[in-house]
């Protein structure tokens, strides 16, 4: 079976995020106030061939660790990409 999966990659706590900070600084000028703690991250959607959804998620988690994220500065997690 083929399962849609999403891997989310976010910066680890305490790691500086210049991109998020720069976006946040730009917001007031655009009329957006009250937005704080902006953090930029990445996501990857893919279809995974596996026995079950949980097997697909496991595979995605391994992929996330090995290739899609840099564990020194990022956290990664996998979730189902099926429309809820």
């Amino acid at each position, binding site marked *: 079976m083929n399962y849609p999966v999403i891997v989310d990659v976010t910066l680890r706590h305490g790691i500086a995020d*210049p*991109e998020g900070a*720069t*976006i946040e600084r*730009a917001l007031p*000028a*655009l009329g957006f106030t009250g937005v704080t703690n902006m953090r*930029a991250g990445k996501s990857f959607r893919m279809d995974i061939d596996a026995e079950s959804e949980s097997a697909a998620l496991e595979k995605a988690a391994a992929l996330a660790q090995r290739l899609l994220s840099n564990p020194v500065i990022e956290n990664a997690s996998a979730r189902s990409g099926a429309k809820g």
Partner: protein
Amino acid sequence: MKIGVVVFPGSNCEYDALNAVQSLGVEAEFIWHTNTDVEGFDGVILPGGFAHGDYLRPGAIARFSPVMEAVARFASSGGAVLGICNGFQVLTEAGLLPGALQKNAGLTFLCQPTTLVVESTASVLTRGATKGQELVVPINHFSGAYTCDDATLASLEANDQIVLRYTQNPNGSRDDIAGVRNVEGNVVGLMPHPERAMSTLLGSADGRVLLEGFVRAPVGAH
């Protein structure tokens, strides 16, 4: 004749653009991005660089700078506007030019000479060149792959809006597109850097024909 070079925080080719224009004997001045008008200028250049660090997307934050409203007004009244590299990205983000620029196909920054073909001379940038002319001009970018949907591409073709193409596509740009213009031809954007090809001492003088065209008396001014 006076050319304005817009400076956003993070721009880094502003001096190069200024020097290139001045080397053609034309007056040029910086315009700080918080300015709300570009009055007194006969042409405006958005230079290369990394405005706002290229954070989010190249040009995404810069296009909201106060000066961009002025640039849009200037453009709609027929003023000559040129976006080079990051400036091209800002113009597409601002909707002043069609399409978008994505990461290079190879996912690395590229600094290398490219050979361009002039596809249309109906623009403020290429009016001094001849159709089919080949020019050696360097590229220096990470996000230079020109992207648009099929309908946009068809209309670019139909309206002769593709101004420059690469002879050997370096970055995965759709249809080898290196530069486009708006329908009227007074707003042009390109990824290669003509201001870096102004003298054989630096490798090529082929950019001169482009910038000389740009700094010529404005369209419809005579």
